[in-house]
């Protein structure tokens, strides 16, 4: 056991198998689409792929954090929408973009705190608690600009600042790759570190695995639950800002059903929706699989309906595969012991 190499050690981490599967799946799907349409391999397509994938990655990170605690966050899509609307509304009113971003983050985090308290402290079923905040956040997104989409943000802060905002989050490039991806990557690395290397991360796994044991070991369940929801809210805000930058305005229905994309990305990458296991590298792969599917199906001109069906089947297959593998694992363990 001690002689295992770095790769072997990596595989020994719980859930690493699913991550590997997801990455292999990602490559297979990508190459398959590439054979059908070589444009899939073009630099431009890769650039676009990475940019579009970033949204799913961010959402996936947030939802994965919450799923690992054994909960779920249905308010993600609404926080995305609320953030797009809040930031855009503020900017159309001439508020400095930096201040607008800051205020938007603040608003989003409040939703995270509310979710954390409802679930952690008052022990509401997370499905119900975040269903509530989902409606409330969407409602706030509607109200901030009087129940209509905003004008172009340049109308408030001027063309120069507007362009700067849009470029920073969406249209600009750094080292040949869109900024959106770099932003997502930074967020990913920060939270990967948080989850894998810090005490908070450890506690997040612990409460998802056995909340009573964690509490008896002195883990602050309320605080840890809230932290997970805060991560989720923060990621949602970033996506909201990206969407506002993409459109150059706030769209009231931005981010609709994104929470489910987050579940899909996490689950494809081996994050257990029951809590306690999963690593963010898997979510990365999951978001990749999701985006390559969408992109590839587009490139081979599949109908939208077909796209949905394929994606749905893949999500179920990913979990099914995991369940089957686990059952085999158990049998294998019994034989060995």
């Amino acid at each position, binding site marked *: 056991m001690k002689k295992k190499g770095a790769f072997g050690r990596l595989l020994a981490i719980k859930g690493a198998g699913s991550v590997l599967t997801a990455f292999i799946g990602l490559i297979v799907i990508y190459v398959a689409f590439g054979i059908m349409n070589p444009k899939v391999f073009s630099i431009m397509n890769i650039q676009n792929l990475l940019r579009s994938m970033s949204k799913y990655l961010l959402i996936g990170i947030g939802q994965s954090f919450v799923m690992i605690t054994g909960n779920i966050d249905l308010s993600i899509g609404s926080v995305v929408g609320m953030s797009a609307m809040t930031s855009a509304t503020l900017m159309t009113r001439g508020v400095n973009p930096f201040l607008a971003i800051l205020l938007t983050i603040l608003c989003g985090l409040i939703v995270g705190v509310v979710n954390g308290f409802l679930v952690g402290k008052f022990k509401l079923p997370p499905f119900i608690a975040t269903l509530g905040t989902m409606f409330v956040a969407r409602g706030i997104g509607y109200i901030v600009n009087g129940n209509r989409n905003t004008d172009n943000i340049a109308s408030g802060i001027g063309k120069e600042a507007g362009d700067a905002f849009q470029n920073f989050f969406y249209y600009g490039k750094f080292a040949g790759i869109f900024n959106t991806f770099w932003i997502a990557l930074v967020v990913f690395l920060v939270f990967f570190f948080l989850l894998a290397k810090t005490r908070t991360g*450890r506690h997040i796994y612990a409460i998802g695995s*056995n909340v009573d044991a*964690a509490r008896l070991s*002195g883990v602050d369940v309320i605080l840890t639950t809230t932290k997970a929801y805060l991560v989720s809210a923060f990621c949602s805000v970033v996506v909201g800002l990206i969407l506002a930058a993409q459109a150059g305005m706030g769209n009231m229905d931005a981010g609709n059903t994104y929470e489910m994309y987050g579940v899909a990305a996490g689950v494809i990458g081996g994050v257990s929706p029951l809590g*306690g*296991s999963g690593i963010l590298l898997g979510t990365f792969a999951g978001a990749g699989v999701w985006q390559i599917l969408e992109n590839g199906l587009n490139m081979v001109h599949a109908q939208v309906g077909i796209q949905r069906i394929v994606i749905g089947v893949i999500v179920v297959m990913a979990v099914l595969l995991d369940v089957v593998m686990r059952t085999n694992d158990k049998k294998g363990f019994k034989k060995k012991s």
Partner: protein
Amino acid sequence: MGEKIVSMEHITKEFPGVKALDDVHFELEAGEVMALLGENGAGKSTLVKILSGVYTLDHGSLNIFGKDYKSLTPNMAREVGVAIIHQELNMCRDLTVCQNMYLGREMKSGFVLNNAKMEKEARKYLDELGVDIDPRQVVGDLPVSKQQMIEIAKALSINAKILIMDEPTSALTSREIEELFQIIHRLKNQGCGIVYISHRLEELAHIADRVTIMRDGRFITQGNYADFTMDEIIANMVGREIKEKFPKVVCPRGEKVFEVKNLNAGRLVRDINFSLYAGEIVGIAGLMGAGRTETTRAIFGVDPKQSGKIFLDGKEITINGPMDAIRAGVVLAPEDRKKDGLCTKLSIRQNIALPNLDVIGGKSGIINKKTENDMCDKAVRELAIKTPNLEVDAATLSGGNQQKVVVAKWLARNSRVVIFDEPTRGIDVGAKVEIYHLMNQLKQRGIAVMFVSSEMPEVMGVADRIIVMCDGRITGELKGGEATQEEILRLATSFENKMAREGEEV
């Protein structure tokens, strides 16, 4: 004895509707093992949960190391040196051994967890206990006995001065228990005060210095263990004298009811052959990991069989899944009542009716309320299940009564063979006797009863015939009345002679 390190006076704790503790007194000295005794529901667990900061007390005073505490949190308790090993092992199954040991007090360097250091420390404490566990293993993959050792290692690692063990031996084999006792002795010599809760009274002679006895949430008595006889202890616990620890019913051995031939299912069920007769109780003895539970699971159809034949009343039957077994009349009362035996959120009525819905519902599938109630009333009456009514949640019953509900599920459909897996685990003396009565009752009805047990006195006292297993094989069969502990142990440890496989990873 040493100085008094814990002193609890007039402790009262109420939960909605129940007074769990009423004016309880408890004390502990350094370097002693204080056995805390009482039936289930006597309030032992509640008391130690107060001492370890899980619950806060309503009234009374709690003094640890000369300092009074009004409210104590698990973290505070840990800091003053109180460690508790819970009866229902509280581990995060998805985390590793090391992660569990340091949960809530992870070592860090800066912001980052210092895994290498924690692993090294964890390894040190595990080595100290002499157990072969890799700190990086995931806890969920380990057997219960090893999980227990991890809990103890955890207690060692926090330098516990007050160690509370709630039923630590219920999942251990004799050899492991011996190891545990050695560890307890060592800790004691180091000045640790140990609170020891166990239903296995025969253990006390090996370790207990003093005893505190509780009943119905009240303090009954306290004193040196040597000053009590076992009968006095039991009488104090149950408030009445228990005549027979293992009531015996003699009835003539009837016909062969059940036979298993050449059953194979994985490494722990190898070439199993045995028969059960009407009017007898067969005990399956063996060490942890001998394949006893696996055998029952294979028979019942939970795990797939590789080969083998099963006969009921002389006719061969095919069991591919639990439903086949149940239909044939072969039923299993599993080891973990709460996990596998009962739907703890459902009422007693719903639990009893569950496997019998085909009878109650008939062809239409609509549940006949009257048939259901009649069936459940009869079961509750026959087995003397103590419950105000049928609508009580199964979870709220005591361990003994839960076991009865599990059995009631099966009796309602005239089962022929009843297999119990560890029927008395975590059950108190009084209730144990009731379970034995229950088994005798089944035996008298002509049902073939088989039970798996790790408690040797129980196997010897209750079974008419004892089958001993080791390493997946049956290694011997003994008469109930004549078997000795040594003989059983010899059979239970007669491993196959294998070449020592050195250098291979475990």
